[in-house]
């Protein structure tokens, strides 16, 4: 295919796509004018029916909780896939690595980064727990809290060395936490089945509206989701960091030993 033909094909296809898009956009309701029936209805019933003041959480973990189970396992499978693809292999750490320059030390972390990172870590972790625990009351929930918690761990790495993280957790513990989180969600859902109603149907007392211990099973689910997301993201980070930093270090130690031996 010559570039001329290619250009003609693109122009025809692009023109048709543009027409379709303009046609579709013209049919959209005006900005802010769309008030779907479901949204209006859920806004009115969720507080009374479920004792949940954050309607987004009510939808995600109750009214369409089954979809969220699916989303959880998409994340689970994605993390699993990355961990599998980037697993340390026997040949790695030896041979030619072009991402390592000899005779150059890694610059130390600056004091400013150290202070800022260490200062920010406790509030970040606390905020993450707050977001997870108050998922059914204020915006946030297991997913948001989980990613924030993972950021706290990332701050520790930024403020120090990679080795500081190894004292904090092991890869095995992360894998287990992720599995417990994902399985916990399903287990909480099965409580409904065990009580004789549907999967993820609430069977726990709804409690006082606005209290942390209310809204039935939703806080439990948020806890599981928070655990899974945080562990999964930290596992992702650890895998990537291992690929870029630890392997490089391995090569360096091997080179220095081979340099020293003759």
């Amino acid at each position, binding site marked *: 295919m010559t570039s001329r033909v290619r250009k003609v094909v693109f122009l025809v296809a692009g023109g048709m796509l543009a027409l379709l898009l303009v046609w579709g956009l013209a049919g959209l309701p005006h*900005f*802010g004018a769309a008030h779907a029936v479901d949204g209006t209805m859920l806004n009115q019933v969720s507080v009374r029916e479920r004792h949940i003041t*954050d309607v*987004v*959480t009510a939808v995600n973990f109750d009214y369409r909780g089954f979809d969220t189970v699916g989303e959880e396992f998409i994340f689970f499978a994605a993390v699993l896939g990355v961990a599998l693809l980037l697993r340390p292999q026997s040949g790695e750490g030896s041979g030619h*690595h*072009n*991402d*390592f*320059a000899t005779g150059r030390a890694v610059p130390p972390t600056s004091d400013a980064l150290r202070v800022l990172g260490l200062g920010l870590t406790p509030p970040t972790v606390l905020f993450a727990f707050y*977001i997870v625990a108050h998922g059914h009351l204020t*915006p*946030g*929930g297991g*997913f*948001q809290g989980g*990613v*924030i918690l*993972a*950021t706290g761990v*990332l701050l520790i790495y930024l403020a120090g060395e990679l080795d500081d993280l190894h004292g904090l957790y092991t890869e095995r513990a992360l894998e287990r936490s992720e599995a417990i989180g994902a399985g916990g969600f399903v287990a909480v859902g099965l409580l409904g089945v065990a009580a004789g109603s549907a999967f993820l149907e609430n069977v726990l007392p709804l409690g006082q509206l606005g209290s942390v211990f209310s809204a039935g099973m939703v806080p439990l689910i948020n806890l599981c989701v928070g655990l899974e997301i945080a562990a999964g*993201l930290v596992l*992702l*980070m650890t895998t*990537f*960091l291992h*690929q*870029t930093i630890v392997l490089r270090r391995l090569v360096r130690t091997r080179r220095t030993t081979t340099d020293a031996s003759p």
Partner: protein
Amino acid sequence: MTPLQVTILVLVGVGGTCVVFTRDPLRQAMVASLFGILLAIMFFVLQAPDVALSEIVVGAVALPLMILLSLAKIRGGER
């Protein structure tokens, strides 16, 4: 549409264009991170704080970090 909404929508448009026109992947990761923050502000302005919270972390921190680490891995020896 309030002026605030117009401003942030225009900024998101400009930011997205900047991401596309930044050709160096290293810089693109940084620009994409800023774009993630813009998106988070947009979600907040459009009254979706739940989405904004996850967008801040995923769009502005996690995604650029993965890109940076991958870049460090695949082209560290270019200099």
